[in-house]
């Protein structure tokens, strides 16, 4: 049985690289990504699992990093917004102005890109179900929804 008793140096797989960080057992993944690894694209929002601004991928599956302990994902591949570069979803968000202040955008993009990869032919119900995980306080949902539909129609 693995035991994490106190703060210790660990290795993590983030955005295709092996990163080293000193992590306490009670530290969230969000905290480690932002403060220990400097990956501030992952946003600190509600810290209650409600807003989705802190969404990252755990082995390709979107999870909320504010509710995830860093020591719990040492055996997983983590992807943050810094790990996505010029994806079809990012291009679609630019084309459709799928953002206003931009704070929620990393979470939305990670969720939308995961949706498109898991369900390339997603119907409206599936899109709605996935997008419910993220909140935009600027209420710019129309542009976001247009961007997701564009992404699903244009996978390249």
């Amino acid at each position, binding site marked *: *049985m693995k035991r994490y008793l106190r703060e210790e140096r660990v290795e993590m797989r983030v955005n295709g690289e092996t990163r080293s960080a000193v992590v306490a057992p009670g*530290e969230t993944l969000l905290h480690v990504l932002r403060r220990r690894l400097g990956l501030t694209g992952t946003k600190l929002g509600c810290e209650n*699992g409600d807003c989705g601004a802190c969404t990252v991928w755990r082995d390709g599956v979107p999870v909320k990093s504010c509710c995830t302990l860093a020591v719990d994902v040492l055996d997983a591949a983590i992807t943050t917004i810094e790990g996505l570069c010029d994806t079809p979803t990012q291009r679609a968000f630019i084309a459709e102005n799928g953002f206003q202040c931009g704070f929620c955008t990393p979470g939305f993009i990670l*969720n939308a890109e995961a949706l498109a990869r898991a369900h390339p032919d997603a119907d409206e119900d599936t899109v709605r179900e996935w997008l419910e*995980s993220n909140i935009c306080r600027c209420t710019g949902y129309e542009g976001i929804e247009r961007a997701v539909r564009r992404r699903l129609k244009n996978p390249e």
Partner: protein
Amino acid sequence: MIASDVVYLQAESVDEAVTAWHEYAESGRAVRYFSGGTEIVTGARHRDDVDVLIDVKRIPELTRVPGGGARPLTDTLFVGAAARLSDLADQEAVPLLAAAARGVADRTARNSITFGGNLCSVLPYRETALPLLLFDATLVLASLDGLRGVPARECFRRRLQLRPGELVVGADLPAVARETGYSARRTRDPRVDYPLVTLCMACLGGSVRFAVAGAYGYPVRSLEAEQVLAAAAREEPRARAERAVAAIEDRLWDDFRGSAAYRRELLLLVLAEGLSRLEDA
């Protein structure tokens, strides 16, 4: 960030997890089993009530989902306590469990939240308990004495009745849980929200069964209410629903999300709708 001095363990077997629980609890520490972790991590920011977390989601038997096949030599469907709700929502083997799982939190959260975590939640809804109550499932619990199976209706009285250190391994559902049944969920906010009423309903052997969350402060299945439904079989669905709800002794929940009267009316609507659908089918 939760308490900086918390200890985190990753158990690889049921025995290891249960033994570790007692090892730490005997030294006076507050020990909790940990799976999806969403409720524990968010809760621990406000309450310093945990010293040791024993992560159980790497224990193979705890991660099984129905559709992985019935257990050999039994005619049951086993659901592991560490099965993620998004996996349960996507499986088709137990449709009412899929529907219940789909109602909890949001899609991304369900990628972390587990079946056992939902059953043990401090929140009053615990919607995945509904199909267990409805189909008379058996909960499989582990302790230092080994495994024991307890009928869900016996083990789930308002909340799970666990002995100190007992671990929920999973639930055995009978093959009849493959029935489609009827489910409905009503919320105040059409997006992600806690339920005012969640109904889980099936017709088994000509008798209608139903279980409810949200309307009361905990999941409820009332045999008395089901008997009333059966006795009034010739009446209209709405009248039968009213008789059945009147037979439930528990007090309807009343809070800022919905008054007791509003929750009662929603319950009557979905129950009458369910009766019509099941009987038409």
